[in-house]
């Protein structure tokens, strides 16, 4: 591989101006990630006029920083306030918030920062060497492969919940049903929209997640003893211990790889990555019951994976000119405004742009890690605020944040409705996690399934005859029956008690 352009790329990044833009980007990104509702895509759109004035490379460096900075910001609210702002932060809530309640928010945030750094960096390195190769692999992923992945995801969803299995499945079923609301992508018929134009495009993830997790929890705490938000016992630590780091190292390693590969797949990459990474750790663990109660691996895995995925989601954009998600679409737009059209020839025609952006990601990840050190301590202090004060502020952030999703008051109504549902679910012993994850995967599953059937002319054996989807379905079967196989084997191995 010709190293000259790569080195040139570093030259571009290390120009003080670009370093500054990188810093600005990650800071804005982190702040945006902390605000639930407002996503990086919308923020970048707001900043587009600024990009008119500055050079293309600097612009993309800044915008990229916003994107992965927001991943980290989203972790903060997930851990501290139980408010996942993005689908990829939902999984972090399970153990992250549990740790916070035990006074170990610092551990959670610290591990998340380290995991994110490693995940992001590994992903950039892999991107630098493997991008074109992996991109063509991504093209081979068609509807049948997505069907397999989505099925796998839904299967995993029910296993990661810490409550009753049956209730987790019911919650997942409800999530699948909610995903149906809206216009059928194949026939244009409206399903369960009751004539409302606002529901014609379906429900958005953010109001559902914020309502179920955030408002639901606050309402439930209100009931406990007229005091909102369970006060954590005093803050034990502000940074993970050596023991924690050792425990998480495997999770971080596996999460990076999983995240890198799953992030390349357009649509749903980061969510699948965080889910898969968490599930893998839980399955490998000798004590799976720790998950959901504050296991550090439960934070390390999804956080590493989602940052790795965020980075690798640039690959389709930079090597094929295809934006993999909403944020990439806006960055695509920013490049268009600059007169640069990303495509397969971007690397050759604009090497300084390509490598400048890629290399800026190394720097950005380092900056984020460095910034976390003082910031974690600062953010953890938030938990010291009296719960009675923190609760209404969180409520308002949630209500206003819900508006920012589509600039629509309807989403505020939605978040309140889901807040009520979240409260009822909590009372009834249902975990919102499976609902939310099934919601995200449900649409993917149905659409991929129907597309696949259209491609196969209705013949389902097509799933098994395609190489990639065949392999995935095999993996599916194994994953589904593994616990049964395991218990069968271990029962056989046990010596009969004499």
């Amino acid at each position, binding site marked *: 591989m010709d190293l000259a352009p790569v080195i040139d790329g570093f030259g571009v990044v290390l120009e003080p101006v670009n370093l500054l833009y990188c810093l600005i980007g990650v800071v804005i990104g982190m702040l945006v990630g902390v605000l639930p509702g407002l996503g990086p*895509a*919308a923020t*970048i*759109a707001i900043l*587009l*006029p600024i990009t*008119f004035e500055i050079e293309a490379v600097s612009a993309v460096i800044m915008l990229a920083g916003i994107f992965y900075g927001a991943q980290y910001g989203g972790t903060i609210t997930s851990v501290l306030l139980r408010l996942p702002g993005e689908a990829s932060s939902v999984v972090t809530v399970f153990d992250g918030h549990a740790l916070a309640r035990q006074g170990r928010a610092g551990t959670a945030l610290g591990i998340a920062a380290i995991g994110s750094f490693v995940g992001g960096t590994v992903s950039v390195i892999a991107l630098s060497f493997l991008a074109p190769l992996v991109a063509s692999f*991504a*093209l*081979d*992923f*068609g*509807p049948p492969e997505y069907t397999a992945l989505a099925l796998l995801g839904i299967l995993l969803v029910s296993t990661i919940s810490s409550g009753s299995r049956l209730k987790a499945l019911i919650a997942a079923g409800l999530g699948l049903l909610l995903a149906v609301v809206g*216009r*059928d*992508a*194949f*026939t*244009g*018929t409206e399903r369960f929209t009751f004539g409302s*134009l*606002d529901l*014609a*495009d379906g429900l958005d993830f953010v109001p559902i997640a914020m309502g179920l997790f955030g408002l639901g929890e606050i309402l439930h705490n209100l009931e406990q003893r007229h005091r909102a938000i369970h006060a954590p016992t005093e803050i034990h630590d502000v940074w993970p211990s050596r023991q924690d780091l050792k425990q998480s190292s495997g999770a971080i390693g596996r999460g990076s790889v999983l995240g890198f590969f799953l992030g390349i797949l*357009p*649509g749903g990459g980061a969510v699948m990555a965080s889910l898969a990474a968490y599930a893998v750790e839980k399955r490998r663990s000798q004590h799976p019951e720790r998950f959901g109660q504050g296991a550090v691996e439960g934070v390390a895995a999804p956080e590493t994976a989602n940052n790795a995925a965020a980075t690798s989601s640039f690959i*389709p954009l930079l090597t*094929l*000119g*295809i*934006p*993999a998600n*909403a944020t990439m*679409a*806006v*960055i*695509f*737009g920013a490049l*268009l*405004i600059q*007169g640069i*059209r*990303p*495509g*397969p*020839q971007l690397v050759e025609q604009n090497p300084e742009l390509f490598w400048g952006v890629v290399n800026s990601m190394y720097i950005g990840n380092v900056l984020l890690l460095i910034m976390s050190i003082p910031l974690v301590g600062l953010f953890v202090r938030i938990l010291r605020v009296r719960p009675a004060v923190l609760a209404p502020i969180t409520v308002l952030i949630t209500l206003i944040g819900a508006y920012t999703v*589509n*600039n*629509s008051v309807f989403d505020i109504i939605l978040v309140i409705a889901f807040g009520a549902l979240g409260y009822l679910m909590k009372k009834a012993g249902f975990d919102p996690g499976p609902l939310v994850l099934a919601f995200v995967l449900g649409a993917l599953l149905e*659409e991929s399934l129907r*597309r696949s059937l*259209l*491609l196969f*002319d209705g013949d389902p054996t097509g799933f098994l005859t395609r190489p990639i989807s065949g392999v995935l379905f095999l993996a599916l079967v194994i994953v589904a029956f593994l616990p049964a196989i395991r218990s069968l084997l271990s029962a056989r191995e046990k010596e009969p008690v004499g």
Partner: protein
Amino acid sequence: MARTRTWISSALAASLLLTACGGNLGSGSDDEAADFPDGKAITVYVGQDPGGSTDLIARALAEEVKNELDVAVTVENKPGANGALAAQELAGKTADGHTLMIYNGSLAYITPLAVPEGEAPDIADYDIVTGISQDDYVLVAAADSGLKTMDDLKGLGKAVKFGTTGVGTGSQLSQELLFAQAGIESTAVPFDGGSPTLTAVLGGQVDVGSIQLGEAVEQIEAGELTPIVTFASERVSYLPDTPTAVEAGYDAPVQQSRAVFAPKGTPTEVIDTLADAFGKAFGAESYQKFNEDNQLTPNEVDGEALRQQWTENLDSYRTVTEEHQIDLGGDQ
């Protein structure tokens, strides 16, 4: 005690400051039409997500118009139902020229064919300031599929699987019309927008797809995609070697088009001022470069001419889909 007093006075100062900032609950304004815009900001709705073509066009224009009219021109994304939601909101705003919308042609002349009666807005309920530009669709296949011409498709031997960017889109309409008239057996496979459709075509998941020129051009130039026909009325300058569907003998001209809409009842002087400002914006060098970079064809006609264009489109598409028994929407 002193502390409380300082606190009170700073609170008062803060509230005075706040009142000075304009709110946005505006109901009727007292601006005379002749003084438009009179220093008050203009909001432009976009019924799509940020980053898409319509959004970018809106932002490019907002930049120019801002300088022409010397007021803030902000773009507000209100995605949903291909713009129907934004259109609905627009209809409820005061018709004083301070709220506009970049309206998509597909919402005006394709969506009504795909959804039940009354669910798509009627352009007769709005005033139109000016047309903006047009975006052409091109039928593409992966280069390694070997499909280069309509004859190749006819000789495929099995039903052609074509990717569309969704139900009720120009992508779907163009291909349905084309294959119906060519007598080619085909199955539509809808995706969620241009990018997934493009990915599916590149990856060989579907045989062909119809996507907007701007999204396909880089891949075509890189040799990864073969353009078969375009759906423009005349050969597209960016693809001089590709015949149009019409040339190939099929009556399937389908284009995406955009225009500036205002709520019904906007005073004529206001419309004229706006049309003037947009007209100057169209002439700006940076905007013209924007069009070139995005393979957009200018369609800067006045409001009434545009209304006629779009109404004719709707009527002719209605006729031709009925003739070939094409149902864009539900198949129950």
